[in-house]
C-alpha cells in the first residue's frame, strides 16, 4: 500500500512540475497579441503611400497584430496619395484599433491621414491642421505646334476654370472628411466649423486639442495603452511593425521629388504644407518659379 502511495505521489509531483514548467515556459515563449508601432515621416507621394498601404494591409491580415500606433511626422504631399493613405488607415481601423501620435507635425495631407485614427494624440507644441489644397496656376488651352490632339482639353485636362473648380472640390472633400471624422470623435469632437477649417490655419497641439482637431495630449506610451484597451488585450507585445512584418518603410525626401514636381502639369492638384514652399526655394530661383507655375520670363504672368 505504502509503495503505491509513494509512486502516485511521485507521479503527481512530476506532472505538476511539468505543468509548472509549461506555464513558466509558455509565459516566456508562447505568442502574445502585438501592438505594432511605426514612424511615418516625410512627403506623402505615391512611393510612401504605397509602402504604408503594404504595411497597413499586412498588419490588418496578421492575427497577432491587435492594433497599431503610428507616429506621424508629415507636412503632406499630393492629394491623391494623401487620400489613399487616409483610406488605407480607415480600412485598418474598421478591423483593428489605430491610434496616431503627431510627432512634430501633421499638417495638410499629414493631418488628412491622421484623422483616420481612432484617436489622435499630439504634443502641445506640435503643428496640426493647414487644411487645404494648392496647385500651380492653371493655364488656358493652347495649340502645341508639334502636337495634334483630339480635343481642346486633351493636353491640359480642362479649362482654367475647370482646374479652379476641381481645386475647390478637392478642398471640399478634405474639409468634409475632417468634419466627418472629427465631429464623431468619441474623445474630443470637433468644435469649429468648416469655414474656419478651410482657412488653412496651422494650430499648435494645444490649440488643436481645444478645437477638437486632436483627442488628447500625450505620447506614444499613452497611445499604446489606448490601442491595447481598444483591442481588449491585457497581455501584449509592443513591436516595431516594420520589423515584425519585415516591411521596412523608407521615407521620401522632399528634395528627391523636386524633379517630379518640376514635371507637374499646371492644374495637377497638390496638397502641400505652406512651409514646403521655402524648402523648395532653398534650391535655385528657377526651381521655385517652375514649381509655382510661373513663366520663365518675368514679364509674363499666368493668373
Amino acid at each position: 500500500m505504502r509503495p503505491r502511495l509513494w509512486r502516485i505521489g511521485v507521479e503527481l509531483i512530476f506532472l505538476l512540475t511539468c505543468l509548472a514548467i509549461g506555464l513558466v515556459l509558455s509565459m516566456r515563449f508562447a505568442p502574445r497579441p502585438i501592438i505594432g508601432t511605426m514612424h511615418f515621416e516625410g512627403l506623402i507621394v505615391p512611393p510612401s503611400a504605397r509602402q504604408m498601404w503594404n504595411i497597413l494591409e499586412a498588419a490588418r491580415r496578421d492575427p497577432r497584430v491587435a492594433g497599431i500606433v503610428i507616429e506621424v511626422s508629415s507636412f503632406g504631399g499630393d492629394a491623391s496619395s494623401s487620400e489613399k493613405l487616409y483610406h488605407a488607415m480607415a480600412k485598418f481601423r474598421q478591423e483593428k484599433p489605430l491610434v496616431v501620435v503627431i510627432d512634430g507635425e501633421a499638417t495638410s495631407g499629414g493631418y488628412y491621414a491622421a484623422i483616420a485614427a481612432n484617436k489622435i494624440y499630439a504634443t502641445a507644441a506640435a503643428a496640426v491642421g493647414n487644411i487645404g489644397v494648392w496647385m500651380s496656376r492653371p493655364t488656358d488651352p493652347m495649340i502645341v505646334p508639334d502636337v495634334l490632339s483630339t480635343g481642346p482639353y486633351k493636353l491640359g485636362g480642362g479649362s482654367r476654370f475647370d482646374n479652379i473648380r476641381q481645386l475647390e472640390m478637392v478642398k471640399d472633400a478634405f474639409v468634409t472628411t475632417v468634419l466627418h471624422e472629427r465631429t464623431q470623435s468619441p474623445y474630443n469632437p470637433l468644435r469649429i466649423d468648416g469655414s474656419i477649417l478651410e482657412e488653412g490655419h496651422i494650430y499648435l497641439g494645444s490649440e488643436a486639442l481645444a478645437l477638437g482637431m486632436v483627442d488628447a495630449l500625450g505620447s506614444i506610451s499613452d497611445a499604446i495603452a489606448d490601442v491595447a484597451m481598444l483591442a481588449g488585450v491585457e497581455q501584449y507585445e509592443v513591436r516595431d511593425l516594420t520589423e515584425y512584418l519585415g516591411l521596412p518603410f523608407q521615407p521620401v525626401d522632399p528634395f528627391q521629388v523636386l524633379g517630379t514636381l518640376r514635371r507637374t502639369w499646371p492644374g495637377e492638384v497638390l496638397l502641400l504644407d505652406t512651409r514646403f514652399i521655402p524648402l523648395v526655394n532653398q534650391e535655385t530661383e528657377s526651381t521655385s518659379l517652375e514649381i509655382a507655375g510661373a513663366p520663365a520670363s518675368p514679364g509674363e504672368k499666368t493668373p
Partner: protein
Amino acid sequence: MSSAHRWLLVLLAGILLLALPFAVRSALTEWRTSPYRPAITGQIELAATPEPTPTAVPAPREPSAPVTHLRRGVVVVDLAHFNMVSPSQFQALSAQLAARGVALRFWTNPTPMASVDKTNLAGLPDQSDQLANQLRDASALVVISPLFLWKDTEIAVVERFVADGGRLLLISDPDMLEVPDRFLRDLNRLAERFGVVFHDDYLYDLIHNDRNFTHVYQSRFEDRAAKLQGKTIVFYGVRSLGGPIISQVRTSDTVQSSLRTGLSGFTTVAIAGLTVNRSSGRVLAMGDFDVLTEPYVSRYDNRLMLEFVADFLAAAQREQELADFPAYLGARVGLTFGGELPLDAPFLAQVSQLQQLLETGGRTLELVNPRHVLLTTTVTFHALTGTPQPSAAPDPPPLNDLIYVASYEAAERETILLRDIGIRLTEITPTPTATPTPSDIPTLGVTPSPAGLGMSSPALTTTPKEEEEEHASHVTAEVTPTPSATPEEEATLTPTSTPAATRVLETSFSPPLLLDETVLILRRQIPGDTQITAVLGSDLAALESGLDRLVTRNFADCVTRPDVLICPFQLEESSAVHERPPTGTPTSEAATGQPTETPTVQETPGVPLGSKGEVLVVDDNRTATADDPREADLYVRILEEMGRAPVLWHTKSDGDPNVQDLVGYRWVIWSRGVYRGEPAQTKTLAALALYLERGGHLTISGRTPVLGGSNRPASVIADIVLTDEVPPLVVGLSSSTITLAPDLPPAVPLGDQWGGDAKVAMRRGPNSADADAPVLVALKSDDASEEARRVIILGMALNWLSDADSTQLVRNMATWMLER
C-alpha cells in the same frame, strides 16, 4: 498494467501538461477581454456633380470704330520697368480703347532681362527722357506691378504729365509677383505721389466667392462707378487700397484681408490724385488686373468693369504744351509762309519731314496760300474754311489749325503774334568807335543793297540815320577776307570802324534778344479752337532750324514760357545771310526806295563747286607753335606738284572760314597735322556740314581731327595696316604695314561707329595703342551725281608718313576726291 506502462503514461501526461500552457496561450492569442468595436462613422458624402461644358452664348457685340478724323492720344503701358505683365494680357483693354478711338502703346525696355541686375532693384538706369518722349502724344499712362522701382526723375515726368491732364492707371495685383520679396512690389513709390497706397495684402472671402477664396465679389459701387450697382463683378486676387482716395468699388462684409485683419468693406478701385500736383481725379487705382484680362473679363458682368476703366482712360483731355507738338493739332493742318519767302531745297526737305511727322499721327499737312489766310490784328483765321473741298470726300475734317512760318518782319507786319506775347522788333546801336567814310565801301568792290538783304520792313519804325546804320551793318556782314589775300591785304579789307546797329527782339520779360540768334516758336489758340503754331526767325536758315526743332522736338536748349519757346540759333549770321535769300520782306525798289543792285554775296548760293578754285587747304593753326611742322604746307606742296592750284587758308590769321568761303571749292582739306587740338566752334562745324550738304568734298587731317574723333584719350600710333576696303586710297603705298617713326605724339583714335557708307582704308597696327582703331576713313554718299558728298578723315598727321607714302596718299586722295 505493468509498471513500465504506467510510467510511460505519466511521462506522456507530463509532456501534455508541459505543452498545455503553450496551447492554451496560443489558442487565446486572439481572445480579447472585450471585443474591438470600430466606430461607425458612416459614409462620407463627397459626390460632386460634374459641370458640363457650358453652352456657348453669343460673344458680346464688337463695338464699331468711332468716327474720328484724328487719332487720339495713345495710352502708354509701362513695360520698361520689367513689369510683371505681358502685352497679350491687354487684348481686352486694347479692344475697348480702340472702340473709343484710343490706341495702346507699350513702352518697353530694350535691355535683355538676363543682363539686368535683379539684385539691385533700384539700379535700373534713369529712363525719364524715354518716358517723356513716350508721353509726348499720350493721353494716359498705365503702370502695373513694376519689377524695378521708379526713379524720382521718372515720377516727376509722370506728375507733370498728369498735371497737364494726362490720366494714370495704377494697378498692383497681389498675384503678379513670383519672387518672394516684398520690396519688389513697391508700386507705392509712384502711387503715393498721387495719394494712393496699395496695401501689401490680398482679399479673400471664404463664404461667397467665385470658386476660390481669392475670387471675391464686389458689392458696393460708388461715385463714378455707381452705374455698376447691381452688377456682378468679381476680382481674381485683389489687394486693398488706402490713402486720400475716392472709393469707387468696395468689397462686401464677408471679404477679409490677409493683412488688415478684423476689417471689412475694403476699397479695391479708387479715383485718386492730389491738388498739390494738379492730379485730382486723374488717377485710377486698382488692386486687380486679372479682371481686365481674358478669361476673367468674360465672367459675370466683369466686362462692365473693363469698360469703366476704358472710359476713364479715354476721357483724358490733356493740356498739351508747345513741347508736345504736334499732339495738340487737329486732323488737317495748314502750312503757310509769311511774306515773300522763296524756299530752297533744304528748307523744302525740312517741310517734308514735318509733313511726315504729322502724317505719322494721322494728320495731313497742306500748303496754304497765304492770301487765304488772314491773320489780322484781331487774329481771325477764316480763309481756310473757305477752301473748297472735293465733293468726293464724304465728311472731310475741318481744316482748322495752322503752322505759320515767317520772318520776324513779316510776322510783325502780318500778325499780332509777336505783340501778343510782348515782343517787338527794334535796333540797338552801340557807340561807334570809328566812322566809316563813304569811300571805304566802294573800295571793297561791293555794292550794298538793304533791299536785297531784305532786312527793311515797314513794320519797323526807323529813322534815316538808323537806316543808314543798318545799311552799313549789312555791308559789314558781307565783307569777309579772301582766302588768297595776304595778311596785309586782309587788314586793309577788314572794316572795323562802322558801328553796327544790332537788331533785337525787345521783350517785356527779358533783356533784348539778338534777332539773328533767336528762333521763336509760338503757340496760340484763337476762338473756334484753332491752334496756330508759329515759327519765327530772322532768315531762312533760322526758320529751317526752327522747323527742325519742331520735327525732332528738340527743345532742350530753349527757354520755355507759356506757349512760347525761345530757342538759340547758332549758325553764323553772315553765312546764313549770304547763303539764304532774304525772308519776309518785299524786294522791289519801290518798297525800299533803294537801288536793286544785287550784292555780290547773294550769288553765293548759286556758286557751283569749284568756281573759286579746286582745292582749299585750311591750315587750322590756331594752336600751332613755331616748332610744329606744317602739314598743310605738305598738302599744298604735293598738290602743286600734281599741277593743282590749292589755296591756303590760315585760321590763326584768317579766322575760321564760313560756308561761303568753302562752297567755291570742290575739295577742302582741313589740316591740323600735329597741332594740339581744341574743340571746333559750333559755327565752324555748321559751316562744314553745310558745305557737305552742298556736295562738297572734305578731308579732315590731323592727330586731333576736327571731325570724327572718338571720346577715347589720345594714344600713340606705332604702325598702320592697310585694308582692302578702299583700294584707290591705298594703292601705291610702300607696304601693307607701315611702321611709323618712334616718339610721335599721341593721336586721338577715330570713332568706330560710322554709317553704312563708310570704309576704313587704314587701321592702327598691332604695335599701336588702341590697335585696330581706324586711321583713314572714307565716306561717300549714295548720290550718283557729280556733287556727291565725299569725306576722308585721316586720324594722324600726314607728316608722319615717309615722303613717298605721304605723296602717294595725297595723290590717291586727290584722285578719289576730284574724280568725276
